[in-house]
């Protein structure tokens, strides 16, 4: 039995963020670092500029949310979207679309819109992204309930180390309309994107060491404030908030414990660019 758990060493080249009172990474980072106050307000999702108009009309909110954070990360990284492999992580994907389908199927006529059905696939955001980016690179779409962010981060890092190529990770979750919202309450929409690259990549924002670890006595890394901790707890994509806070603070190396599954955590060591690990 081998218990040598490897650490996946990757660089962070770009970051995207969108959430309540967090319009993007550029303005959100000082808020996450505690340097500026958090002005709470509902998540405002911008239109997906990269998407052609015909597709833009069809795309649901989760696509727009994913595009918003993906664009920020890809731009900051200076990455070529047309050759970038992607990992999309979401607990529920297009929640409003799912509600509309279930509502239609509960009617005697059961009339389903073809566009709604196409948008219901969990990989809709990935599909639209690769169309918009004209990218034939590999893409996967994952779901692991509240562990979706960690599942995505682990697989994205695994791909970077396996292929030696950069990977775009996008985590995005949205609230449901009622009645599903009562069964799966999410307070608002939240999205995170990271462009990860091999450890030796030039000009990284930070370096990460990512591994899985049987759940120990060490508690989960909480959000830096009560408000951020509530987001972290209540929105699957926001389970990555402690990592974003560490990236925003950027001063000293730190070790985080991110929520993944029952009995299993993601251990993430964060080293600011230039710091020795």
């Amino acid at each position: 039995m081998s218990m040598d758990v490897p650490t996946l060493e990757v660089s962070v080249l770009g970051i995207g963020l969108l959430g309540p009172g967090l319009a993007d990474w550029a303005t959100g980072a000082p808020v996450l670092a505690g340097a500026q106050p958090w002005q709470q307000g509902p998540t405002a999702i911008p239109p997906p500029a990269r998407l052609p108009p015909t597709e833009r009309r069809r795309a649901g909110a989760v696509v727009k949310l994913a595009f918003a954070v993906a664009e920020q990360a890809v731009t900051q990284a200076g990455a070529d979207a047309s050759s970038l492999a992607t990992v999309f992580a979401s607990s529920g994907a297009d929640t409003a679309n799912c509600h509309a389908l279930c509502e239609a199927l509960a009617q005697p006529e059961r009339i389903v819109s073809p566009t709604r059905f196409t948008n219901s696939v969990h990989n809709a955001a990935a599909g639209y992204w690769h169309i918009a980016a004209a990218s034939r690179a590999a893409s996967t779409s994952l779901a692991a309930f509240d562990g979706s962010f960690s599942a995505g981060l682990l697989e994205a890092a695994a791909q970077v180390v396996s292929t030696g190529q950069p990977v775009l990770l996008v985590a995005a979750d949205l609230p449901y309309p009622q009645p599903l919202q009562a069964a799966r309450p999410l307070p608002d929409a939240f999205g995170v994107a990271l462009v990860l690259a091999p450890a030796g990549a030039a000009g990284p924002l930070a370096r990460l060491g990512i591994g899985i670890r049987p759940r120990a006595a060490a508690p989960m890394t909480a959000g830096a404030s009560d408000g951020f901790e509530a987001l972290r707890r209540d929105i699957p994509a926001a389970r990555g908030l402690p990592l974003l806070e560490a990236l925003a603070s950027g001063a000293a190396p730190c070790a985080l414990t991110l929520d993944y599954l029952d009995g299993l955590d993601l251990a993430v060591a964060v080293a600011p660019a230039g710091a020795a690990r």
Partner: protein
Amino acid sequence: MKPTPALAISAFTASSALGTGQAATLDALREGRGGLRHTGFDLIETPMWLGEAPGVDEERLPPALAGWDCRNNRLAWQGLQADGFAARVDAARQRHGAHRVAVLLGTSTSAILQTEIAYRQRDAATGALPPGFRYPQTHSTGSVAAFVREALGLQGPAAVVSTACSSGAKVFAQAARWIALGLVDAAVVGGVDSLCLTTLCGFNALELLSPEICRPWDAGRQGLSIGEAAAFALLEREGDAPAWLLGCGESSDGHHMSTPHPEGAGAVAAMRQALAAAGLAAADVDYLNLHGTGTPSNDAVEDLAVTAVFGDALPCSSTKGATGHTLGAAGALEAVISVLALQHGLLPGGLNRRSPDAALRCRYLDAPRAAAPRRVASNSFGFGGSNACLVFGRSPA
């Protein structure tokens, strides 16, 4: 691309319209017998051609897992019990440790049927779902992987891969990465997708359902027939295995959400990648299990892509005429069919074809054939332009 290490498929099973377990599946493939029936499902009374797995409704989860009860998890449970699969995983758990075994499963809809039923039972006054509705255990797209992880007593990393109809193949690629990196020593991979109104009515709305039984590669093919399946494989670095995973390829079309790239460029890329990862040339492959859904455009594009990579002499067939299109489980079910083909010296036939399409050039097998394939490939393509190809072999090299 460098060749990747081969992985032993040290246990495997499937439950589909062909029956429960390897023997039932193999018998049907050998006899060229299909499992599609002209029947209704749930509230749909108008009969259509469906590949329903037998006995799913009669399955009962053990009391400790009762909170997970729904048709999708019953199908998963049925699959886990077949061929002693759960017992083989238990032995692997003891060999490697519960934290060292991953669970990666493909599905397109998980247990959405449970939510569809709950929406018919909403409180007339408040609109609320019925009190027994359990989102995390049923509706949640990740639920089937969480259920299987708990049912098998595993503590390793887990996720659902949900890339529509390539899901059940892509889990093999992800597991291969995780094992090669040493994140885990073994992985339970597979796919579970069960019948539901979302997919039946959704594909109908897209006019992709065949009014008659689906006829892949037929000149008069009119679309797909939907099926359901649970298919599982246990992947390890070494072992006494009937077949090995030699290579995986993954790509995107980047073209359209629900129609394939006209020249199958993404599909070609996935097949070439899988061959490169396996360290093989196209001529080293002895049989290809086509994605072969039976829609006019899908089969035409796949034919172009397959002949571009393999030429027109490679024996090919789609087994979806026998099983139906099992969507997120299809890649895993067809992986199991590929392993059976290697183990038992069989090239499966494609059923229901009456008149060959003169425009298609693949060497399509209409009937099963005894042979001794050393390597077989399997294609899986999905909405969103998601492509995967797997290559399996009788031996690791």
